[in-house]
């Protein structure tokens, strides 16, 4: 049962990991993108749309579907959709210098609304009585595991039995971690978030870095939405099912002290807390609800603890949330 619990925790944690890695990359450039929940939502619905169109084109026949295309089309849709929203956010905040918090919240509202609108439209298209779309065939392709995973007992279950997006999430987080701390690009990006005037004076293109970091971050976060639909929800979309995972991803950024490698641990912890109630026997319905609260309680505790931390290296980027204008005086 413990193996099952861990697997489930990992499954739940991956959307959070995508979201928080994306947000860390963004925040390192000094942009507090509160639009991440909306962007993940858009990532999910874009992926669903891509998968839906491909399934329709193949006449809903799994034999006609090409594995590569079945994965690639939703993947590209999800990335493109979320990057476009990221681009909108960047345009508003970097170029037009709109307030980041307001813009972010607006983007979240927009993303959720857009997701529900498109989701509802797709449901109408297939003319069902159900309130959801099922893309089980595409989901099967996404959830293919390594053939030998089953032969290795608990080790195989825990480490090898997941969908490829899970591994990609960890690879992206580790890569982001290395890029941020070990490369010149990472150094430049961090300096842009810490002190854009300094970065500018050092000849770093602040605008380019902010655009790129925000858009790449959005793309990564969008994959979290896709993973949720294809792996966690077995390919079924229903409006508002994604819930507030996006906000938890933002809280995780603080928990992880702006380090993608810490986000891996943090998201696993959050994932475990999210479904602890299913694995503790003898809980009444009311106590179950209390357990479901745990991730949110932990988020609040984490916020309190991190705000008490004093070490400078653990602080958010100094210019987080502030727009940069060179000739401001």
């Amino acid at each position: 049962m413990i193996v099952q619990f861990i697997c489930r925790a990992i499954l739940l944690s991956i959307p959070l990991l995508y979201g928080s890695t994306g947000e860390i990359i963004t925040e390192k450039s000094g942009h507090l993108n509160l639009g991440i929940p909306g962007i993940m939502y858009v990532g999910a619905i874009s992926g669903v749309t891509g998968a839906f169109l491909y399934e329709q084109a193949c006449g809903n026949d799994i034999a006609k579907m090409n594995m590569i295309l079945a994965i690639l089309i939703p993947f590209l849709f999800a990335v493109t959709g979320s990057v476009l929203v990221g681009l909108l956010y960047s345009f508003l905040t970097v170029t037009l210098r709109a307030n980041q918090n307001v813009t972010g919240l607006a983007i979240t509202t927009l993303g959720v609304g857009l997701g529900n609108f498109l989701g509802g439209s797709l449901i109408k298209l297939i003319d069902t009585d159900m309130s959801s779309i099922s893309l089980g065939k595409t989901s099967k392709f996404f959830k293919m595991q390594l053939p030998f995973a089953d032969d290795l007992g608990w080790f195989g279950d825990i480490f090898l039995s997941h969908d490829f997006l899970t591994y990609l999430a960890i690879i992206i987080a580790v890569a982001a971690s290395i890029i941020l701390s070990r490369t010149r690009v990472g150094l430049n990006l961090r300096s842009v978030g810490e002190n854009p005037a300094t970065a500018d004076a050092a000849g770093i293109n602040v605008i380019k870095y902010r655009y790129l970091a925000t858009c790449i971050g959005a793309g990564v976060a969008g994959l979290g939405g896709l993973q949720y639909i294809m792996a966690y929800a077995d390919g079924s979309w229903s409006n508002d099912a994604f819930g507030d995972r996006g906000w938890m991803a933002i809280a995780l950024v603080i928990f992880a002290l702006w380090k993608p490698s810490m986000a891996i641990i943090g998201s696993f912890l959050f994932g475990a807390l999210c479904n602890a109630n299913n694995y503790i026997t003898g809980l009444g319905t009311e106590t179950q609800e209390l357990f479901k609260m745990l991730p949110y309680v932990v988020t609040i505790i984490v916020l309190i603890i991190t705000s008490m931390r004093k070490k400078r290296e653990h602080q958010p980027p100094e210019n987080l949330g502030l727009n940069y204008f060179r000739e401001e005086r």
Partner: protein
Amino acid sequence: MASQPAIELKNITKRFGKVVANKNVNLTVNRGEILSILGENGSGKTTLMNMISGIYFPDEGSIYVNGEEVVIASPKDAFTYNIGMIHQHFKLVDVFSAAENIVLGIKDGKYNLKKSTERIKQISEQYGFEIDPEKKIYTMSVSEKQTVEIIKVLYRGADILILDEPTAVLTPQETSKLFNILRRMRDDGKSIIIITHKLHEVLSLSDKVAVLRKGEYVGTVNTAETNEAELTEMMVGKKVDLNIFRSEPCSDEVRLSVKGITCVDRQGTVVLDDISFDVKAGEILGIAGIAGSGQRELLEAVAGLQKLNSGEITYNNPNTGNADNLRDKTPMQIRNLGVRLSFVPEDRLGMGLVGNMDIVDNMMLRSYSKGKTVFLERTGPRYLALKIINDLEVVTPGASTPVRRLSGGNVQKVLVGREIASSPTVLMVAYPVRGLDINSSYLIYNLLNEQKEKGVAVIFVGEDLDVLIELCDRIMVIGSGKITGTVDARTTTKEEIGLLMTKSDYKGEMNNG
């Protein structure tokens, strides 16, 4: 090599909206030469330098580097022409190490901090810097940060260095060390442009002096052929009396008595260690010390803004004759007793003024509770604002301009003017002339002297030791939160104070190690 021009500016003009920051400026700096730029606040020195280093772009005129006309549209272009600027407010990333800051933004070659560290050490040896490349910026002293800034531009191979008020935050010892390094660079064939307000520094360091007045270029003179009076006249446009009139203290009444105050900050460092002193009515007590030795905490403690761990502060109220313990009182009550704090922090706006509000509204921050109706009383503050603008010669388009848009020195005049206008009994001023030009500095000194003659106890935290010696009655030196000595300003020397400042620093290091 001696007389080859490294950089030339011709007819440079720059406007910010309606304000003309620079008008038809012409400058030439040769190789192996140090040029000082003198000018009052708001005369456009920094704007001019920002145009050379690519932060701003000139509206008119042309720039020549090594005889060729160039376009400097960004800091990157400035690097290409080997121009490096050391800003007044350091452009460093606090959480990065010195080495990381130095290599920031350099594109050539592989990213290899170890190799870079080697080169940094090599540059340091060549010019005589002392630096640990792995040290984080936020743990550094001001002088160390400045060193990082200078190495940063040298690392990029700069031949033309621009320093914006480099000595404003340094001790005399650090200043002379810096000047030695600059001279060594000059002998190495580099061109150096230095912005400073301190005339004796101009005279001792530079080869030529260029003077700006209200954005206009007045002229360039050879340092060897000029003197303080002539430079001041060029700068201000009229003769200025460079003497501070110091009267004798007028009474022996102790106004404020501080006994054994100790203060520990959130990190657990002792910032004030058993400080005791008295301030008499009608005297100016100077406080000298390296920046960050506890001056700020001390003033805040008296103003009730700093939590004390022990000790007491007694205020002898001239109106009631009572001795009040200030530790029992809220900052508001202390203010109402007439204890006023005017602290000018490095960023000038940090405490005391709200950047986005205009001068009148900033006056109202002190008087909003005085009105008798439910509506705000605006005429008084407005009158006060106009009076300060007039008396202290604040350069501003009007009383309703946001304070943020004024140049640094003018912001300071507004702040100091407001605190003095509230007719205090104890006036604490910290760095009131930080970055101010000569004319306005003397205005402020005279204001302080007036207050002293009125019987106000004045505490003056200053940076310039020459001024402290001329202005104050007694000077208390603090280092690492301790009093290291109190001297009579009429008989002391700069060297004695400098020694007291550094002696404590040395001790502090011994204690930490």
